[in-house]
């Protein structure tokens, strides 16, 4: 950008000097010579720098500006995944606990989620007080609704 500014400054300066010199000289013959010299100077100052213009440098300049502006999508995805896992876990646990409550029992559930791309419940630890009939109903619900078979349900009952 500094190069462009210097170029513009030199073009403006040489044009102004040429016009001022032309304005100051009254004699026609001298005016012709000054005009000729002015024209050659303007040509050299305006055209010569453009011959050495390197588009590669402009491309590198733009690349330099671009570097370091990328959004850190990796850490955002990590935060999103963590929040999603937390929400899925809480939702599934609440569902089981509410099912047990609806049947008249008291249960605390702790879900374990899969490690894959989409977090789904794979196993559950259940602590509470349920009658055998209630236990069977809840266990069947968990198997049907959350796809957690009985061998992956860990029960710890009291009372």
């Amino acid at each position, binding site marked *: 950008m500094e190069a*462009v*500014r210097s170029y*513009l400054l030199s*073009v403006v300066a040489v044009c102004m000097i040429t*016009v001022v010199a032309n304005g100051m000289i009254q004699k026609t013959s001298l005016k012709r010579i000054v005009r000729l010299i002015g024209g050659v100077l303007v040509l050299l100052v305006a055209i010569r720098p453009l011959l050495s213009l390197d588009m590669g440098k402009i491309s590198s300049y733009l690349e330099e500006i671009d570097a370091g502006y990328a*959004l850190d999508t990796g850490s955002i995805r990590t935060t999103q995944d963590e929040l999603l896992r937390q*929400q899925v876990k809480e*939702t599934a646990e609440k569902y089981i606990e509410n099912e047990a409550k609806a049947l008249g029992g008291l249960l605390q559930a702790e879900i374990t989620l899969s490690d894959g791309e989409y977090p*789904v419940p794979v196993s559950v630890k259940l602590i509470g007080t349920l009658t055998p009939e209630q236990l069977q109903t809840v266990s069947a619900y968990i198997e049907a*609704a959350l796809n957690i078979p009985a061998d992956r349900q860990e029960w710890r009952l009291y009372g």
Partner: protein
Amino acid sequence: MKRVLLLLCMLLFLALPVCAAEEIGVDTDILEQALPEEAYELMPEITLDDMPDFWSGTKNLLLRALAKTNGSLQSGLRLCAILIGLLTLCAVADMSSVNKFGGAVSAAGALGICAAFVGEFNAMVTMSQNTIQTLSDYSACLLPVLATAAAMSGGMTAAAALHTGTLLFSELLLQLISKLLIPGVFFFLAVATAEAALSSDALKELREFIGWLISKSLRIMLYVFLAFLSLTGVIGGAADAIAVKTTKAAMSGMVPVVGGMISDASETILASASIIKNSIGVFGMIAVLAICILPFLKIGVQYLLLKVTAAISGTVGLKPHVTLLKNFSAAMGYLLAMCGTCSLLLLISGVCFLKVVV
């Protein structure tokens, strides 16, 4: 009985809490802390905690800023009075002088008018440079926060592209304005003054070229940015919508009965992030307006006064001097355009972030 139980369960899921900004990894305190004091004074009632109302916020901003432009109006009127006085003096001197001194009157008048104008113009240049730098610094705080919130609301691809693009164009514009266009405006003034002093059309083409370069650079920058935003919005939005739908479908398919409810858990996070994103977006846009509105009004007042002065000076002044005044008002207009372009870039970008809806 089963239907009642199911309804109760569904009501419980509706009561899930909305996520706070910190929970979704977005630090919003920095947006209020990074605001310059002058801008903060114009928007004291607007905070990120309540959802800011854009129109009432902007209206209050404008009214407060207008009240602060009195000083600018007085100094502008003073300058215009000096310029008209000089013009009239030169016209009278030209009428009274012998032919060979006519050129000297024109030259002295042009230089005198330039000297009277340049002090005020320098102050306006400093103000617009500071404004543009402040906008750039604030955008470096605002855009990552806004982009993170937009990405968390499901628009990952669009947010990343908007973030990178806006910062890149903002930096390019800052470099262009500070290193080329502002010096270009001074070159424009120098050439315009020489043109008036010499009372010749020899420098007219050069002056028009510099003016064209300044106005076209800003326009091209803005058009390219708008084109980039339009394409990003369409392409990124489609990709993000597919990604969100795929996640929902996969999760609801994996878990038989409550799969739909579990996949709705992801909707909860997206909805919370979307609310936070909207709040940040509106606050950010009002903040950008707060930063640029006062300088914009001050420069705008000077610009309008110079326009009026150039118009009325046509009745008394010499033609080269009247043309010089018109060029001065054009130079002030270029400064206004530079401030306007920078703030417009950020405002349009803010709107695009708000429009990232998956």
